[in-house]
C-alpha cells in the first residue's frame, strides 16, 4: 500500500502541555515499507514545516539493538509484533484508516522528560549496584583457560541479550523491573567468572531495584511476552533461587 492515511493519538507532555494529554494528528502518504519511526519522522517534518513543536521520541540505532526507542503502541510496549522493537516495526503491519495510540513507558521509576521520552537512569544505577564482574583491565588469564559448556554459554547469552529498553517495566502492572535484573543476575551467574560475587550481586541489585521505586514481581509474565529480545521469565526464577539462597546461606547480604 503506497498511500495509507492514519489517525494518530499521541501523548504530549511538557511545554504547551504541562499536565500531559493525548493529541490527535492525521497523517497521509504513509508507505507500507516505512518503519514506524520513519512514519513519525514524516509527521515531525510536517509539524516543523508548519512551525509547530515536533513530537519528542527517543531512538538511535534503528536496528533493534541499542534499546533507546521506547513507545507503547496501541497498548503494547514496542507495538503489536512479538520480539520486535518499535524501530523494527514496519507500517505493513497496519492498515489504511487505522487509529494508532502512542504513549511513553509509564512507571514512577521512569519519569517523563518530554512527550514520549522517559528517563531510565534507574537502570544504570541498578547495574552500578552490582551488575558486573570485579576484574581490572590486565588481570585476565588466557581466554581458553576456563572451558564453558556450549549450552551453558548459550543460556548465559540468552540472558545477556537484554537491551535495557525497559519494555518489561512498561508491560508490568506492578512496574517491576525483575526481568531486567533477572537477566543480568542470570547471565553472570551462569559463567564461572561471575559465580564468585553471585551472592552479593543479587542482594545489591535487588536492593537498588526496590530503592528506585520499581514494583514487586507477582509472576504475571507480561514482561516476557513484551520483551523485544524474548528473554524468558526463567531468569527471574533463577534470580529468586539465588536471592533466597544468598539470604539463607551467606553472610554477604547487602551492605
Amino acid at each position, binding site marked *: 500500500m503506497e498511500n495509507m492515511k492514519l489517525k494518530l493519538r499521541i501523548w504530549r507532555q511538557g*511545554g504547551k502541555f504541562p499536565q500531559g494529554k493525548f493529541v490527535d494528528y492525521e497523517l497521509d502518504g504513509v*508507505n507500507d*515499507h*516505512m*518503519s514506524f*519511526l*520513519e512514519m513519525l*519522522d514524516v509527521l515531525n*517534518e510536517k509539524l*516543523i*514545516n508548519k*512551525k509547530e*513543536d515536533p513530537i519528542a521520541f*527517543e*531512538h*538511535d*540505532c*534503528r*536496528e*533493534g*539493538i541499542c*534499546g*533507546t526507542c521506547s513507545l507503547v503502541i496501541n497498548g503494547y510496549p514496542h507495538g503489536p*509484533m512479538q520480539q*520486535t522493537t518499535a524501530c*523494527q516495526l*514496519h507500517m*505493513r503491519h497496519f492498515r489504511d484508516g487505522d487509529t494508532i495510540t502512542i504513549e511513553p513507558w509509564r512507571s514512577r521509576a521512569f519519569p517523563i522528560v518530554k512527550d514520549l*521520552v522517559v*528517563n*531510565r*537512569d534507574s537502570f*544504570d544505577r541498578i547495574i*552500578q*549496584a552490582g*551488575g*558486573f*564482574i*570485579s576484574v*581490572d*583491565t*590486565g*588481570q*585476565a*588469564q*588466557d*581466554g*581458553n583457560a576456563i*572451558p*564453558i*559448556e*556450549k549450552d551453558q*554459554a548459550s543460556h*548465559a*547469552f540468552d540472558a*545477556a*541479550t537484554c537491551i*535495557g529498553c525497559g519494555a518489561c517495566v512498561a508491560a508490568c502492572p506492578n512496574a517491576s523491573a525483575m526481568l531486567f535484573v533477572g537477566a543480568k543476575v542470570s547471565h553472570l551467574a551462569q559463567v564461572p*567468572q*561471575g559465580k564468585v560475587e553471585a551472592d552479593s550481586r543479587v542482594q545489591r541489585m535487588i536492593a537498588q531495584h526496590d530503592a528506585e521505586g520499581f514494583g514487586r514481581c507477582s509472576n504475571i509474565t507480561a514482561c516476557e511476552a513484551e520483551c523485544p529480545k524474548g528473554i524468558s521469565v526463567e531468569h527471574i526464577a533463577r534470580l529468586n533461587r539465588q536471592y533466597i539462597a544468598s539470604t539463607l546461606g551467606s553472610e554477604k547480604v547487602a551492605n
Partner: protein
Amino acid sequence: MPFQSNVPPGELSEKWKQYRSSMPLVAPNNKRRLEVIIVGTGLAGGAAAATFGELGYKVKVFTFHDSPRRAHSIAAQGGINAAKNYQNDGDSIYRLFYDTIKGGDYRSREANVHRLAEVSVNIIDQAVAQGVPFAREYGGLLSNRSFGGVQVSRTFYARGQTGQQLLLGAYQSLSRQISLGNVQLFNRHEMIDLVMEDGKARGIIARNLLTGETERHGAHAVVLGTGGYGNVFYLSTNAMNSNGSAAWRAVKQGAYMANPCFTQIHPTCIPVSGEYQSKLTLMSESLRNDGRVWVPKSQEDAAAIREGRKTGLDIAEQDRDYYLERRYPAFGNLVPRDVASRAAKTACDEGLGVSPTGLAVYLDFDAAIQRYGKSRAHSLNEYNADDLRIRELGVAVIEEKYGNLFEMYEKITGEDPYVMPMKIYPAVHYTMGGLWVDYNLQTNVPGLFAIGEANFSDHGANRLGASALMQGLADGYFVLPYTIGTYLSQEIRNPVVDPDGPAFRAAEAKSQERIDRLMNINGTKSAEAFHRELGKIMWEYCGMARNAEGLRKGRKMIRELRQEFWSNVYVPGRIKEYNPELEKALRVADFLELGELMMLDALDRNESCGGHFREEYQSEDGEALRRDDEYAYVSAWEWDDTEPVLHKEELIFENVELKTRSYK
C-alpha cells in the same frame, strides 16, 4: 603545532614492549590529583574510562545518550579479530599485522598496526574475564569464524551481537568504577566545544541535553572516543545520532583531520526502499562465509526481476554470474569490503541490478543450505534423506549461525531470506579517516587524545571486517592507559584546572553565541532537510567512485548549501529545554564543513586506494591503481574557512613490501 609520529625506535616486533617499559609513569598519589575528561562511552571511550578509573585517575565521562550502554558500538554484529591462533591454522601476530596493512592498502602506520595485533590477544582474555558470552565449541573452548580479506579463522563472536556483548562488558566495568566513585558520569551531555589554554587542551564546554544549560568542565587531558562521521552521508549504517561534532570542534581549535576521504562502503546492506528512508541496515559480513553473491548474466533477466515478472528463483544456475567467485577465485565471496562494494556497483552499472531501483545484487544461501543439510543428514545417519529433509536440516544450521540476521532482514523487507535470496547493496558504514594522532594517540593539540573510530590510526584506506571492535578496545584498554602517561607525567606540577577561568568563560560565551545565531535564523527548512541534501551531494560526488570534476562540483555545492543553512534553517523550540532539533542542527552545521574537507581530500589524492576510488586511476580490468611514489602519505588537514592547509606525514614501510593488492 607539533607534527611528529613519535614512533619509538627498535625492531617492529619489539617497539611496543620496549617503549612500554621505558615510558614515564605517574605515581598513584599523583594519579588521584590528575583529572581526565573522556567524551564518548563506546568501546573505546567506555573501556578507557573504566581503565583510567581502575588506575586511580579522576575521570569525568560524557555521553549524549541517556546511558553509556547505548553507544553505537552496540550495533556491531559480526565479531572481533585476535591473533590467538586457537584454530592452529597458521595465524600469528605478524599475520594479523600484515593482513591489516595490506587490507588497508598500505596507507597506515606500521608501528601502530603491529601494536594493535600484539594487544589483540589480551582483549579476548579481558572480555572473557568480564563474562562476555562468546560462542563456544562442544568442548567448551572459544569458537572462531572467518572474515573478508583473510585466509585464517581468527574472528571471535557472540552470535550476531558481538558489539553488544563487548560493549556491555566495558559498560559493566565502567559502572563498577562509577559506583566506586572513581568515575563521574555525565549522561545526556554533549560536548559543544574544546577549551584551550596556553596551547593545550584543558577542558570542554558541554550542553546538558535535559535542561539546555551549558557547562564548563576542566581537566589535565581530554580524550575523544566519539566514533566516526559516516552520517555526513545522511544514509549510512550508523545510528541516527552518531555524529562528527566533537572531533570537528577539536579541528576548529587546531587539531588536524587525517585522511577524511577514506570512507568504508560496506557491501552487504539492505537496499534503500524510498525517499523517507532514515537509515540503512547492515547485514553482517559473516554472511559472506556462507552466502554467494550473484546477478543474472543477462540484462533481460535482470529487467524481468526488476519489473516483478521473474524472481531470483526463476534464474537457472547457468544463467547466474557469481561475479566475485569468477573475478577473485582465491578469496571468492570473502574479498575485502572495498573490492566487494565496487564489484556490486559495477554489476548494477551494467544494468544487472535486481531491485526496482536497479541498485541491488543477490546474496544467496541455497548452496550452503544444501551443503549443511547433507552434512547434518550424514551425521544423523539419514543416508536416504530426500531433498525436502535435507533442506530442513540445512535451514536449521543456517538459523543457528545467522538466525537473528535473517529475522532482521525479514522484518525490514517483508521477504523470507530462507526461501528468496537476500537483496543487498553497499552503504556507508565506517570512516577510516579521523583525527590525526601520533603513536601515543595524542593529536597535534597537546593534551588532546583520540581513540577508536574517532582517530585515523590503524586501518589505512580500508578497514578489514571485525577490526573495529579490536581497535576500539585496544585503544581503550591497552594502549591509551599507558601512553597518556607520557603527557600526564609532565602535568603533575600543574594544579587542578579552574573551569571558571577566562578561557573557559570565553569558550562558553562563543558556544552560546553560536546556538543563539542558529535559533534566531528562523528560516523555513528543517535541519533534517539540509542533512538529507548534504547526504545526496556526498554520495553522488564523494561516494563509491569519485573524479576530479565531480569533487570540484560537489565542494561548490556544499559551500552553497552551507550558506543557505546559515540563512534559512528553522530550529523549533527553545534553547534552555530538551530540544533534539537543536542538537541535530548543531551537528548538521558541523557536517556541512566536514563534508567540504572530505571532497578536498579526495581531490588531492590522485590515486585509487582502498575505499577511495578515483575513476581516473584504475587498471585496464577496473581494479584500483595506487600510486605509492607520490601518495604514500597521511594527509593531515588544518581547517581554514577559505582554504584548508594540507600537512603530509610520509609513511615509511620497513617491514612490508608495497605490492599491488591482489585477491585473485
